[in-house]
């Protein structure tokens, strides 16, 4: 088995998958804790469906670098959902459900009507479940992912205390002088970037698992915000690495295998804590 693994590691695209997988799982788990505590666990799903819709638009417009459309559209919707606040006419889970289903439907419709690909079902399936995307990355995709991940990590570390404050009590944070609107906007942008990156790893339908499972697993064992965040990051990275390696060794779909690893980790943490 190890011979086979080292044989696979000789190929650059396997190494790219491991690098990108580690970075994406690290970033998603950091923000996952905040999103779970703010009761926005399902936003990952909604935004990934929006990213799918944007991908369909990019395909229809034949845009070479589809990130030019996916990233701005996903960020815009993330800002609308997270920063809409109490004044929004359609609130919380209803807004996420509406955006999620609507974007998925429009994306699939556009791909069916305008797609030039011979295998629309295959394209949709790959985008939704991330069957092979992570193993078909080009060096430019890896550089982009590394750059965006560094931006996310640096932002999280720099504004850790502010993010901590608005995660638990926005009113208290506002009273202590924190610009809550600005930091909600920052979180919205970061989570949109993470979702777009994570689509490559597990596909649009499974993105929520990357955001939610590591945070919930860590919360079973640890109690402070800092320890939960660190534990979530460690669990997420281990599960992603294990998932990628099992997928390439056993020939299973990468995204589903990573999520299966996250479920196993959650069960272990759940049993350990009880």
């Amino acid at each position: 088995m190890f011979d086979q693994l080292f044989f696979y590691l000789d190929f650059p695209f396997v190494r790219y998958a491991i690098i990108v997988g580690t970075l994406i799982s690290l970033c998603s788990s950091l923000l996952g804790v905040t999103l779970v505590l703010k009761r926005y666990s399902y936003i990952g799903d909604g935004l990934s469906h929006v990213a799918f819709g944007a991908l369909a638009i990019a395909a229809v417009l034949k845009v070479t670098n589809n990130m030019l459309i996916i990233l701005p559209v996903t960020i815009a919707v993330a800002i609308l959902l997270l920063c809409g606040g109490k004044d929004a006419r359609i609130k919380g889970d209803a807004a996420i459900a509406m955006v999620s289903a609507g974007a998925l439907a429009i994306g699939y419709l556009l791909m069916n009507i305008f797609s030039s690909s011979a295998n629309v079902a295959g394209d949709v399936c790959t985008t939704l479940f991330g069957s092979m995307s992570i193993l078909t990355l080009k060096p430019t995709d890896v550089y982009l992912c590394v750059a965006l991940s560094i931006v996310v990590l640096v932002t999280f570390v720099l504004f850790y205390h502010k993010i901590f404050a608005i995660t638990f009590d926005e009113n208290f944070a506002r009273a202590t002088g924190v610009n809550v609107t600005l930091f909600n906007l920052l979180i919205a942008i970061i989570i949109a970037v993470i979702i777009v990156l994570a689509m490559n790893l597990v596909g649009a339908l499974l993105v929520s698992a990357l955001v939610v499972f590591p945070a919930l697993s860590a919360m079973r064992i640890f109690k402070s915000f800092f320890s939960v965040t660190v534990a979530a990051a460690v669990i997420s990275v281990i599960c992603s690495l294990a998932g990628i390696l099992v997928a390439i060794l056993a020939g299973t779909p990468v995204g589903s295998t990573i999520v299966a690893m996250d479920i196993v980790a959650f069960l272990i943490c759940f049993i350990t804590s009880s």
Partner: protein
Amino acid sequence: MYKVFSRITIIAILCIFSLSTSSVAAENISANHVDLDLTRMSSTMVYSMVFQMVTEPQKFVGKRIKMKGAFSSYYDEESKRRFFGCVIKDALACCSQGLAFETFKPRKYPKDFPSEGSSITIIGRFDYEKEEDGIGFPIIRNAIFIK
């Protein structure tokens, strides 16, 4: 004079025969040699590897490839040419892709070929065939079927 001529002829025939047998032997040796054995890889790796071959064929040109997949054929009306392919599926079985191949010895279709969709294993040299419009496609040349 006749004896000398006949001896030279015999030696020449023997030389040609030995050359042809050595080339057959060399072909047999090279037929067993494989640079990239896709049959040893998991389905996830095979799909990813074929994707690399299709998107970056220059990295694989000249290498001997062994692969297993489903047999497929297609007749192109424009070029009046029949293409043969070895098709593989991804782990979700929703996407498939394949490589075209040319057999080492000319065969008659469909008599000398497997039935559509049946499992085949081939060994051949990876190449990139450029068409007149500059667009090309990867193809496995001198392919032999392995039972």
